[in-house]
């Protein structure tokens, strides 16, 4: 340390993983030839001393536990017989002895393996065999807890930063949505801080494009997938325009497969089999025509005056997966929306959430019930009611997946021609 320049000396603490040596406190210790009277004297002097190590020629050979020692010495004639004898009589001859360099993880496993004794009496710390001090179970637990918290903190900070990036990526779409459709609302809730669900909105003078998608995985791997899927979708929109959702799905399918090497037949075992489920559509307010293409996700439509929600099922084919053919083509389904119709799309996070008295999935039926019950409300109110219904359903169960759902109401009055 001394050769470090003085100006850095105080401000650059070296990071080092804690080890057994850090657990060790200096305690009084006995030389092997010292007497039990001396042991008694030390224990009386240091009231909080749980155990007293015994050293022979600088090397630890045992540990005297206070309670055992006291109870033995209080028996009849023990004082008279053992008082002047050396202190190994009531000593534990096989305490846990660890090297000061031993890592905390190994030390913890060793201590647990050794049993209660090592936790209550403590363990002896030695350096190259020479006695250094004693470490205690409680202190070890404190360090383990701190270490655990520090590791969690580090991972969480990293993920929180990732979340900033993911949210920034999604923000442009939110802005596009606000611009495109006033009567619309979106809920995006990753199960963890980042997630595998994403959405994309693109506004054009004659209409707008929407996609709600669920990439495989959640958390960090899911978020990686959203970046891949979202950027390939962006490219596809640049290339083909936003008016043909089926073509966009086909294009994203090819891009993901190429990018992740998920080409069937090219390699026996591709490293990954990832992709996404998606619901996407192009909507023209002037004609109220909605062109939908779905990959394992459906579209829910409730027209004014209709009793039931119409479910427009997407194709049962995910985007990008190994078993989705490279040249698979999705097809568009055209839905003519009646004025004031509600349109709702969701990822499976809502449908599959486990809850209720029997711990079963929320299901499409309950989604339809909420849509029907909230049909007079705004999309934002409907979504809030959907969130509440899900929360009630979920109760004390864990959230199982990321959640994204989107609702809008088709214009009641046909908008005038766009300038």
């Amino acid at each position, binding site marked *: 340390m001394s050769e470090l320049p003085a100006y850095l000396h105080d401000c650059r603490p070296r990071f080092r993983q804690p080890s057994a040596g850090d657990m060790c406190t200096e305690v009084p210790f006995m030389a092997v030839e010292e007497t039990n009277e001396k042991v008694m004297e030390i224990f009386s002097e240091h009231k909080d001393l749980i155990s007293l190590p015994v050293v022979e020629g600088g090397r630890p050979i045992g540990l005297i536990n206070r309670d055992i020692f006291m109870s033995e010495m209080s028996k009849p004639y023990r004082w008279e017989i053992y008082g002047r004898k050396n202190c190994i009589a009531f000593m534990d001859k096989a305490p846990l002895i660890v090297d000061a360099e031993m890592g905390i993880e190994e030390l913890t496993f060793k201590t647990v393996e050794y049993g209660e004794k090592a936790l209550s009496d403590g363990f002896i710390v030695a350096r190259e065999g020479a006695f250094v001090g004693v470490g205690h179970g409680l202190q070890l637990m404190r360090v383990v807890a701190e270490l655990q918290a520090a590791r969690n903190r580090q991972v969480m900070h990293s993920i929180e930063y990732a979340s900033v990036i993911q949210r920034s990526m999604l923000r442009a779409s939110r802005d596009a949505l606000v611009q495109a459709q006033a009567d619309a609302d979106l809920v995006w809730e990753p199960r963890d801080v980042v997630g595998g669900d994403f959405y994309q909105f693109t506004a054009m003078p004659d209409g707008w494009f929407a996609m709600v998608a669920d990439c495989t995985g959640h958390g960090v791997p899911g978020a990686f997938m959203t970046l891949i899927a979202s950027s390939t979708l962006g490219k596809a929109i640049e290339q083909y325009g936003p008016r043909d959702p089926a073509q966009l799905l086909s294009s994203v399918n090819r891009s993901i497969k190429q990018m992740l090497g998920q080409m069937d037949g090219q390699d026996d075992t591709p490293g990954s089999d990832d992709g996404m489920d998606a619901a996407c559509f192009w909507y023209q307010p002037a004609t109220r025509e909605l062109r939908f293409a779905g990959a394992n996700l459906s579209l829910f439509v409730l027209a004014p005056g209709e009793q039931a929600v119409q479910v427009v099922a997407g194709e049962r084919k995910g985007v990008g997966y190994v078993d989705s053919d490279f040249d698979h083509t999705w097809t568009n389904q055209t839905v003519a929306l009646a004025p004031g119709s509600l349109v709702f799309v969701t990822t499976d996070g809502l449908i599959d959430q486990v809850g209720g008295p029997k*711990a079963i999935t929320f299901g499409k039926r309950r989604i339809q019930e909420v849509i029907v019950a909230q049909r007079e409300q705004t999309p934002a109110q409907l979504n809030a009611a959907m969130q509440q219904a899900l929360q009630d359903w979920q109760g004390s169960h864990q959230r199982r997946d990321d959640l994204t759902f989107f609702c809008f109401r088709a214009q009641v009055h046909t908008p005038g021609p766009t300038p």
Partner: protein
Amino acid sequence: MDNLYIPPTPSSPEVDFKFDENTLSLRGESYPENAAAFYGDILRQLQAYLGARSDQKIQVSIALAYFNSSSTKMLFNLVGLLSDAAEAGNQVVLNWFHDEEDDTIFEFGQELKDDFTAIQFVNHAVKSA
């Protein structure tokens, strides 16, 4: 070969493959952090077992209350292996269990039934207690 038993966790199902009795069972929920890692070895052992069987009656029971999208892929792979074994001359019965009110799980079973016709699919709607 040895039977395969993996105890359940909150996010992974109980796997009870009694290869010596030709009964395979999967119960619980499935959303492990890495579904490919969890199912990789299971599928390998299943494949080895099925490869060595002919003219056998194999009973499979699946009772899953939840599975995420990665697990769904793995389930398809698993049932795909069973289907291959059925096409190779074994009689494979797939008992699919779902709560009578759980449409989501029921519908997934129906998809498996439609996709893998070589397997004898038996739907069990479990009544609430």
